[in-house]
């Protein structure tokens, strides 16, 4: 699970990119807290062959699940 809450652009998507490049996992969970990060990671996931689901919790945080 990658915790990218509170980080400026482009850290959240960069952390995802690093994980995908080094381990190419079948499933990856990421927690972020801005819509910008959600959209950036969604675009990255789609461009790299992952499907993605987004769940928002009561604390205005988003749990993203990337899967192949």
């Amino acid at each position, binding site marked *: 699970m990658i915790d990218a*809450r*509170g*980080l*400026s*652009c*482009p*850290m959240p*998507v*960069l952390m995802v*990119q690093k994980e995908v490049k080094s381990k190419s996992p079948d499933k990856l969970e990421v927690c972020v*807290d*801005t*819509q*910008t990060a959600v*959209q*950036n990671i969604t*675009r*990255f996931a789609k*461009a790299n062959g992952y499907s993605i689901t987004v769940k928002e919790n009561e604390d*205005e945080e988003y749990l993203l699940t990337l899967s192949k």
Partner: protein
Amino acid sequence: MEKKKNSFLKDYGMVILTGLVIGAAAVLLTKLGNPKNMGFCIACFLRDISGAMGFHGAAVVQYYRPEIVGLVVGSMVMALVTKEWKAQGGSSPFTRFVLGALVMIGALVFLGCPLRMVIRIGGGDLNAVVGLLGFIVGIVIGTIPLRKGFTLNRAYKQSKLEGLAFPIALVVFFIVSVATVLLKSSTEGPGSMRAPILVSLIVALIVGALCQRSRLCMAGGIRDAVMFKDFKLITGFVAIIVAVLVGNLIVNGGVKFSFADQPIAHSDGLFNFLGMAMVGWGSVLLGGCPLRQLILAGEGNSDSAVTLLGFICGAAISHNFGLASSAAGIGAGPVAIVMVVGFIILAIVSVCNMKKGA
């Protein structure tokens, strides 16, 4: 095919629309009185506000620009409507202040923020193409620490007041600027060239709201293209140039491409390049260009609010110590020395904030 088209519009439509509107707005505001090739310049306008507050004494660039107020408030309203407004802060505020000051010093050596650079290109100013090359080099340099684990650490949720304080202060001083003569106001020079207040405000409110939706960012466009081969933001960048070019052709009947005699610009290629390189490197470390910092401040990000204070302070330093350029050329102060020191500071900030093991 249908589906592909829809997803293209979904991903790119808003950012292209924003770019086109900004370009058109820049041409319109120039036509209505704003300085040439400066319909919208975040650095210039914050510098004018810095002057209006009396932080620097350059009498020709003092005006409390309504565009800045509109951009921040437009972003704030849109973020509140879409429930994206969130008070956040605490990610290395002082480092951000210093980076903000350096970005402004670099921008005033070039004479414009990345947004004005693009507007200048659309206006035929080839010096801005030199600036763009510097900007790209600065961004590429900035992506090196990013790849090596650079971070200014995370921001945390803050009180609502912390997130609202900057927009409120901006509006309060705006009211003071309109209702009283307490603030300074240029009677000649760029600071005296103004579109009508109400038009500036309304146009900026619309642009601010659009920028909040599209996340348009000049530094982010090139950064994302370099790092992720993600071309979303850079399409906004291109859309601005296209809109300004077309707008200038319609309004002025033509565009003159040249290095010499461009409005509020100088032809010192080296310093145009270095100034924008500093802006690019600093903006990447900050996570966004000056325009983006305004939008984030509207969304409740107090780190961006501190960055904006850094810009305003940087503008005062630039003018108080003769670092800001003018149409006549670079400033009479120790510009070269300050630029060298600035790049050293950027290098130190870059290296010292790389997380080990990343």
